[in-house]
């Protein structure tokens, strides 16, 4: 059948693509228009007047959008880095070794994806108060690990289940120290998985709202929090501008790592477990 699909198959494929793109892009168009509009009211199809005011405000010091952007990037990078540090060894253990209680641990790692965040965060909140981690950036980074770690660990478990550790034994035998073995043998083999897992971790952290709100206590204002503030205050133009800025990193990361997400890479094999 390959290479000789019928005309209907071709049309169907084409149609699916169009629907998918429209689905993803369409909701964003009003937001984009809003960010350049000076008043846009029913029944106008397009605003009467255009302006850069919302953007000027958004990138000015008064709005706090840029501060919030850097903070959000910092928190997401921190959560991603910690996820990699914990998720790679955890994924190795789950992917390569059999041990007692393995299925219980797998369940516990999956739990944060299944249990609603709001339920988890209230319990975590009292724990973090006791540990003095509330209202701080560190606390927010730590609490972001709850939703990011499952993705990272499952991706790495998938990678390691297809991984042959005798390559490491071979490297050691040829004179490589454990550190060099990791650098030259293990890392290149698992890097696609780390990139994909890291990408998911970053984006999951990037879109956290409730965890940041509760643990940050309103003092750690990341972009989604700021966005929500403007959205509820009725400033559609500024909301549109911030939303555009908020989407930027996600799209950028996706473009940079698209080749690893093609499904052909072994890195996404772990998602069979989700």
């Amino acid at each position, binding site marked *: 059948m390959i290479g000789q699909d019928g005309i209907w198959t071709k049309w169907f494929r084409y149609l699916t693509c169009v629907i998918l793109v429209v689905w993803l892009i369409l909701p964003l168009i009003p937001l984009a228009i809003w960010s350049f509009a000076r008043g846009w009211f029913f029944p106008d199809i397009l605003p009467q007047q255009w302006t850069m005011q919302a953007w000027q405000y958004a990138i000015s010091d008064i709005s706090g959008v840029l501060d919030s952007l850097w903070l959000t990037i910092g928190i997401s990078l921190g959560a991603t880095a910690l996820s990699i540090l914990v998720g790679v060894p955890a994924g190795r253990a789950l992917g390569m070794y059999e041990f007692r209680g393995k299925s219980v641990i797998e369940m516990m790692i999956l739990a944060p994806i299944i249990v609603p965040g709001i339920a988890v965060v209230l319990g975590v909140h009292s724990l973090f108060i006791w540990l003095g981690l509330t209202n701080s950036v560190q606390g927010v980074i730590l609490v972001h690990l709850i939703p990011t770690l499952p993705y990272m660990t499952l991706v790495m478990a998938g990678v390691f289940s297809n991984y042959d550790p005798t390559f490491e*034994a071979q*490297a*050691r035998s040829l*004179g*490589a120290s454990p550190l060099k073995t990791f650098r030259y043998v293990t890392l290149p083999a698992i890097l696609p998985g780390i990139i994909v897992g890291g990408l998911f971790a970053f984006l999951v952290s990037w879109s956290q709202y409730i965890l940041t709100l509760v643990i940050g206590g309103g003092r750690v204002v990341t972009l989604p929090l700021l966005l929500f503030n403007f959205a509820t205050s009725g400033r559609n133009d500024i909301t549109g501008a911030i939303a555009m800025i908020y989407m930027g990193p996600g799209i950028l990361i996706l473009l940079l790592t698209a080749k690893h997400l093609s499904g052909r890479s072994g890195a996404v094999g772990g998602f069979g477990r989700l």
Partner: protein
Amino acid sequence: MTHVRIDDLTKIYPGSTTPALDHLSLDIGSGELIALLGPSGCGKTTAMKMIAGLLEPSAGDIRFDDRSILRDKPEHRGAVMVFQNHLLFPYMSVAENVGFGLKMRRTAPAEITRRVADMLERVKLPDMGARKPAALSGGQQQRVALARALIVEPDVLLLDEPLSNLDAHLRFDMRDLIRDLQRDMAITTILVTHDQEEAVVMADRVALILEGRLIQYDRPDAFYKRPANEATARFFGGRNFIPGMSCDGSFDSALGRLILPKDVATGPGTLTFRPENVRLGMPADGTNMLSAQIVDVVFLGSQTRLTLRVKDTLLEAIVNPNDVQALAPGDTLSIHLPQSALWVV
């Protein structure tokens, strides 16, 4: 040039009561190539991994030039292992693979380049350095793996079934290549194999290991002429085993009385002789002659296998096809067993 001594090396895996390797002791001369021979699961690979430092022994000692190396990490042992499935690093080029060990030893890049080119020449893969391992055939990959191990000039080279993944016609080339390079570089080498022919052809000495125990450690021809026991003889293709009594240079059994070579011990035992040592026709001096009836004739190509009945005992003989063209099951003939071909286990 490294002299290797293995003393009572034992490995008991966790959760197991029977040792995977049971008090293995070997003395391997400097520059010697020995084979650890045995069926799969006999403990030979366990032994090799312990020498390479990839597995902790339960007991015993391994000494290189009279210095125990058990506390040395794998990367500092001077023993380099070549795995059965070659394990070339897939994202490195052939040249990077071969140069890996030198890079780990912080050799200057220019020297690495020079030595890699030289080594690839020696394994007959010049101009292949830029390729990726996946672009090579199985035989070429195995040669790259060999080059990668030899380039660091290890004290001891460990080869795990180096020929088992190769096609028959490549096997002979690889066998000769390993043997030539090993002799040339005078590297003490331990080869693990389940193939007795491979062990016999390649090794200076063969250590036969069955069920974790060393059965016999000897020159290859001794396994044919003087096997330590019936299991050894069977492993090396022995087919004829006749129980009886050895007494004063002769052996009494269901076959009658046969004259033994001089150095055979007295007492009850099992007489064995190799199928290819059975001779057809009358002996010149009339000793060890038997009258046999043919039960079966199987043409094997370059040889013919006869199943013979001598006084209700079945024997096997391997003979030249030209000598038995006219024979069929039911025919009778004279055979004799040369005195020097007999052995009692």
